[in-house]
């Protein structure tokens, strides 16, 4: 039963490809993977927007959208219809081709990063040997689309915002990669499916061997998630389109469905990056407890992904937007040094792999100290003179 459920997507695929002659089956199965990703993550995107609005409402003591359909469940479709029927305005001085190309490219790059994420035990669209590298290559390409959007609008504010966005994305590319490197070092592979397999197994059947449950893994996950929030332009790092301060940054001159496409790309990027985070640190499709393996692996993946995205919404509901200098300072003075130290920490963990018995406790203590002490020290130097803030006129 469990095995059948586990293989269910594969069975469906084989059943559909069975209708086609042998020579084109590889093409059909490839297309099926694309269609499945588009359908599942398209729907996931639609309901993510609704969930985000509902949850943000709850975080802020209000019920959120609940008028369209039962519990507002039809809201995403109403939004889609609204976006599609809106007038699509292209500025007269805009670079028409690039203006059109930018939203398409940004969605395309967001989507192709899904190709290497293992959604389940047997569910990985493309099992590449250099999957992590591929993921980041696809990620950086979307920066180019962002630049194109800003430049093609022929609006100086769009242009400046696009440059700011690029500065932010480049700044956070580094901590993101530095957080990923320890995982690659310790699992000895760039392939996402093998990284997940390496995190299999449980101690006493209840404690999973996920990377996040080690000192270096916890620090790495922490850095990774902060950088991921910045990479996907979400609050508190949503400076590129800070709708309350800038008009909408590089999206100023976009309207109608092109504007919606940028948001689609943002949510795709967020889902993909969180998916990578789940894959690298939270054990991917592995069940948290040995007994719970009866639940199919792809369900576990989606549950973990949703939890991580929920945490991002939580952070969005809580924190204020940073200023651009605070943002880059956080990246270069805090996350990058911490990431480098964490790299050394992971190396220590790798070298002390054969310690056992009481030495195991020493290993944990050293590893935790190596990451906690710099965290406290860097935090103290960075925040010295900043807190506690005194208000002269307010009480």
């Amino acid at each position, binding site marked *: 039963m469990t095995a059948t459920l586990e293989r269910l997507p594969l069975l469906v695929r084989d059943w559909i490809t069975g209708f086609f002659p042998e020579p084109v089956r590889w093409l059909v199965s490839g297309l099926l993977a694309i269609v499945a990703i588009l359908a599942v993550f398209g729907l996931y995107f639609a309901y993510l927007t609704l969930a985000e609005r509902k*949850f943000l409402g*709850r*975080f*802020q*003591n*209000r*019920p959120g959208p*609940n008028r369209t359909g039962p519990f507002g469940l039809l809201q995403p479709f109403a939004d889609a219809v609204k976006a599609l029927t809106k007038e699509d305005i292209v500025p007269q001085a805009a670079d028409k081709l690039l203006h059109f190309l930018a939203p398409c490219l940004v969605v395309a790059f967001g989507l192709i990063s899904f190709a290497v994420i293992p959604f389940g035990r047997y569910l990985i669209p493309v099992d590449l040997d250099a999957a992590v590298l591929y993921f980041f290559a696809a990620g950086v390409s979307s920066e180019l689309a962002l630049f194109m959007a800003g430049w093609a609008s022929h609006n100086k504010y769009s242009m400046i915002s696009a440059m700011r966005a690029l500065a932010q994305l480049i700044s956070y590319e580094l901590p993101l990669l530095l957080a990923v490197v320890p995982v690659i070092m310790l699992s000895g592979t760039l392939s996402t499916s093998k990284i997940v397999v390496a995190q299999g197994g449980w101690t006493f059947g209840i404690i999973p061997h996920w990377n996040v449950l080690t000192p270096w893994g916890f620090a790495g996950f922490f850095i990774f998630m902060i950088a991921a929030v910045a990479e996907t332009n979400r609050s508190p790092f949503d400076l590129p389109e800070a709708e309350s301060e800038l008009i909408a940054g590089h999206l100023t001159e976009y309207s109608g469905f092109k504007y919606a496409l940028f948001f689609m790309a943002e949510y795709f990027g967020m889902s993909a990056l969180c998916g990578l985070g789940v894959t690298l640190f939270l054990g991917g499709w592995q069940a948290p407890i040995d007994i719970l393996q009866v639940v199919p692996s792809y369900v576990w993946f989606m549950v973990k992904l949703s939890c991580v995205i929920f945490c991002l919404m*939580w*952070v969005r*509901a*809580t*924190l204020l937007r940073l200023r651009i200098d605070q943002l880059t300072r956080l990246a270069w003075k805090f996350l990058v040094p911490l990431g480098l130290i964490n790299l050394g920490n992971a190396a220590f963990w790798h070298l002390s792999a054969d310690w056992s018995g009481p030495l195991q406790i020493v290993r944990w203590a050293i590893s935790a100290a190596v990451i906690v002490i710099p*965290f*406290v020290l*860097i*935090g*103290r130097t*960075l*925040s010295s003179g900043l*807190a506690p803030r005194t208000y002269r006129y307010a009480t």
Partner: protein
Amino acid sequence: MLGSGIIKGLAVTAKNFVGSFHDPERLPTVEYPEKRLTLPEAYRSFPFLVFDGENAIDGLRCVACKMCENECPPQCIYIIPERDEKGRPVKKPKVFDIDLSVCMGCQICVEVCPFDSIKMDQVFEVAATNRFEGLIAHREMLAKSNTYYHQIRPTEAAEVDTRLAEEKRLAEEKAKAAAAAKAAAAAKAAAAPKPVATTAPASATAPAAAPASPAKPAVAAPSPSPSSSSSAAAPMAAAPKPPATTP
């Protein structure tokens, strides 16, 4: 330590999130068209005209004195007094319009009204499809019964009613006193012819002036009226009433 503030903030929002599902304190939103808050008694939106009795137009307390029209800061009130067939003004408004798109709800008309005839309403759903005609409230639309007034703000309406009743009582007393004085004067006048023959003819004017002197304290009586809010308006209100009630 760095990040402790963030964790505190996250705890606050988490409390909100969890609390919003079971604690009404954490989800104070009222879903308006289905559920409504009970408005506080002092809530006010636009003015309306109070009438007594059954007929909305005949029972209007308004006497078209135009005080509200004169005082209205944005000048949203427009009054034409009723005239009888001889062209003399009757104490009724023929036209009483309030432009709701101009009215700012300042309540000055209510403050100045000597007859307690204009009051603030609590209806806020005044949306209309036409911004010219749709938002001008006419006399018929503005006239609302005293019962309605009691419904929306019971305390204030009760206060106004006791004040009006008191004024009415005083006015009746005064009228009675005036009638009594008149009767007394008439009796005196009837008794007078006797001494007329003995006294000087000039003294004949004195009995004529006599009925006026007891009437004076009756006019002054309403000033220590129990109503505190519009004690200034009370004598003004009392002044025109006796002639209205005497016939």
